């Protein structure tokens, strides 16, 4: 219950919850409410702050996810095809998150004011957020396959 392996797994799951939860909350809750309640200039100002803060939270949780994930591989003591696919998907997710926050997010953050171009960037930001969220869900599904599926390589945590 209090082993290092248990702690690493706990941090890994918390990092997934934070990364996925933050992205889903901003896409499905915050963005529609901002669009309904605020005018375009105010919406952009708030959106800029969200992009910066959420970017920090998501990228940090992805870092925790990578470090704890690699430690988990060490604890498991083997690499299956399923795990290799999962690792490739993780690299894709990190790449997309970097593009979402480091490229589109920064363009929104540096924009002078509301415009058609900024609106398009905001729409693209949400689309990439949804793609990242879907890929993270797929990774979670593969993780369940690794621990509970027929080809499970993970022994139960003692």
């Amino acid at each position, binding site marked *: 219950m209090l082993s290092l392996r248990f702690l690493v797994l706990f941090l890994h799951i918390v990092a997934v919850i934070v990364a996925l939860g933050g992205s889903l909350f901003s896409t499905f809750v915050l963005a529609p409410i901002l669009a309904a309640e605020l005018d375009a200039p105010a919406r952009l100002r708030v959106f800029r702050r969200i992009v910066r803060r959420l970017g920090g939270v998501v990228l940090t949780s992805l870092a925790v996810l990578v470090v704890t994930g690699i430690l988990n591989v060490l604890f498991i003591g083997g690499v299956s095809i399923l795990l290799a696919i999962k690792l490739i998907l993780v690299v894709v997710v990190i790449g997309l998150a*970097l593009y979402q*926050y480091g490229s589109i997010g920064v363009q929104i953050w540096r924009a002078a004011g509301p415009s058609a171009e900024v609106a398009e960037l905001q729409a693209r930001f949400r689309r990439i957020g949804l793609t990242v969220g879907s890929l993270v869900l797929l990774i979670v599904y593969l993780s369940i396959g690794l621990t509970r599926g027929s080809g499970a390589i993970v022994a139960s945590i003692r």
Partner: protein
Amino acid sequence: MGRLTFVALLLGAVFTLSYGTGAHIAVRYLNPPFGAWWNSNEFAILECAAAAIGMLSGIRIGARLVNDAALKNRAMIAAVIVSALLLPIVGRIGAQIARFKFTNGASVNELLIDRFRYDTGMFLDKLLAAGVYSIKIAMFALPFGMILFGLAIAIFMTSEPARDTAAATSK
């Protein structure tokens, strides 16, 4: 950045080939003390060079996805410094993971011996194993590099003053 990657690639290629072919014998022949040092350190250098290739590649891939030049440069410098500090740890962890078998490994060994006879087959098998080992370490170090760059982006992004945003929100 390009030079660093080139140096890492060069070291990786030289020490992977050296370990795979047992080239330390030739170095020993030319200079015995240096050959002994080479032999005892070539494997560690191979691991560190492979981890460096992976992390630098990760940072470069990450940098390609960011289009703000100032932010990208600052994040790249920070990520490279942290990568250099973490290199021995990442190299060691990557090496441990690279030792895990993806397959039972017997089929390639047998194929090479069948095709090239025992001596050449075993030589090629060792060379192939060293190459695959390096590639596996680099592949596991790549996400580390990417996420170090991502963390640097996150830190610089959140630490930069908010300009009009703060004023607008306080109103």
